[in-house]
């Protein structure tokens, strides 16, 4: 885990409201463990926005670290103003990783929705073979192509690209086996739907969750998610709640309960 003044290499809009930033960050890149990990970025040097923003790593290429972000507030709006050569203060790599995606017999299905596709794209690069489903509301929010022959499926709510419906619509039409493992990241309602589906059909699923983080390194205890099988005793510590920054962001779907 390092704090580094990274240099912006590229920062461009890749689809409607969705941006991709490439940073030169040798320290962070050299400490990278695997897909699922994230970095935490400062808006700028002022203290107006003092909390770092966690963003999943979308790609690591030698000393380059890529993130994909969506504009959802003035902080992310700030990010879009960064130009090549500007610096960004980043902390990372943080968090745990997806597992078993290349284990023998594994048949991974990767599911990304909204900006949740960043860690999914990163994982896709690391998979020897995988099916990938990416969901969005409409075609203009997609930057990949629907290529069923290559096992890349897009879905849109309005049917303007790929399969009409959501990622679950696509998933339900797939042949699943006992070796299927789902890997998903996206908005909470999507993750809940996948959690329910995996539970119903007894499929293993790893979910990468988002949480509001104060520090990203376990100091503030702010980013908790409720554990499913935690011993909920009158007095417990980290048995009922897990720290997403240290224990996550990737959880087996039967480990956690969404709020």
């Amino acid at each position, binding site marked *: *885990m*390092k*704090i580094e003044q990274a240099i912006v290499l590229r920062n461009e809009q890749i689809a409607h409201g969705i941006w991709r930033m490439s940073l030169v960050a040798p320290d962070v890149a050299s400490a990278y463990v695997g897909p699922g990990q994230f970095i935490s970025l*400062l808006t700028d040097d002022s*203290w*107006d*926005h*003092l*909390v*770092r923003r966690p963003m999943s790593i979308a790609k690591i290429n030698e000393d380059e670290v890529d993130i994909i972000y969506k504009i959802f507030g003035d902080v992310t709006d700030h990010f879009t103003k960064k130009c090549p050569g500007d610096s960004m203060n980043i902390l990372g790599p943080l968090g745990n990783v997806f597992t078993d995606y290349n284990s023998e017999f594994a048949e991974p299905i990767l599911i990304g929705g909204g900006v949740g596709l960043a860690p999914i794209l990163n994982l896709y690069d690391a998979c020897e073979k995988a099916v990938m489903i990416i969901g969005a509301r409409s075609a203009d929010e997609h930057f990949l192509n629907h290529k069923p022959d290559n096992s890349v499926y897009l879905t849109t709510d309005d049917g303007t690209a790929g399969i009409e419906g959501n990622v679950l619509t696509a998933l339900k039409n797939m042949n699943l086996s006992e070796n299927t493992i789902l890997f998903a990241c996206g908005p909470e309602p999507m993750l809940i739907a996948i959690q329910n589906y995996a539970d119903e059909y007894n499929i293993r699923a790893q979910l990468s969750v988002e*949480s*509001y*983080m*104060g*520090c990203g*390194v*376990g*100091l*503030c*205890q*702010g*980013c*908790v*998610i*409720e554990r499913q099988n935690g011993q909920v005793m*009158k*007095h*417990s*510590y*980290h*048995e*009922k*709640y897990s720290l997403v920054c240290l224990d996550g962001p990737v959880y087996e779907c039967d480990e956690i309960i969404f*709020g």
Partner: protein
Amino acid sequence: MADLSIKIGHTTFKNPIFVASGTFGYGTDNPELVDVSNIGAIVTKSITLNPREGNPPPRIVETPSGMINSIGLANIGVEKYISELLPIYEVMDTPIIMNIAGSSITEYIDVMKKVEAVSSNIVGYEINISCPNVKEGGMEFGVDCEMTEKLTRELRNFTDRLLIMKLSPNVTDITAIAKSSENGGADAVSAINTVVGMSIDHKTKKSNIYTTYGGLSGPAIKPVGLACVHKVFNAVKIPIIGIGGMVSSHDVIEYILAGSCAVQIGTANYRDPGIAEKILNDLNDYLDEQNLNSITSLIGAVKTYV
């Protein structure tokens, strides 16, 4: 180079830059990001008699130049503090101040008695009578002079180590609580804990914090902290440890001018766990530039108009 050492009660610290309770864990995390040996003292996360899981999420939200938290005193409890942490502190160079929270006088006493019963190198206690986020956080003490004095006096009986009462800004008159702490036998007071605040999402019309209200911290509360320290400085003789919104050596100097003899860095640690050390270096440079050989002459030296 200036002599940065300071004395509070009969305890000497190598420098006045401490890290605040709840913002640095138990002082044993993140060795990659920070060398704790340069920190004046680490005030550890509030410890209660039993472990606490804390409040449901959301617990944190950013606000203009600050953040609101409602962690709910999640902590490992005193037994684990004794068995797992005290042995680690034994081999650390950095002085440890243990922060205690409780919901009754007996709970505070029970925690302190357990720690006093074993041998350890912790240098003192900071008593949290000011956590706004849980009813067990001692706020009922922190707003009541009689209770504060009684709690301080009781605790004084059980320890010769440094005893610091941590004051809340969420009171009508912070000087009254400070005086009660002094009368009860505290060696020092620290101020301030977080300021009660609220954050609402206008789009979803929802509260951004599970418990509705939480504790505001960060640069947004610096002016509140400065005023509290200055008022308390004019009201009591015991030393004051300033807390609230410091992110730079300039902020620290302002807190010293307001009357602090030491300070605690809080929320700024979240952004950079190594910031206390940087602030310390900058403070050193400042004193050199000003040809001062210690901070003593600056304590409470603010020039006011009236």
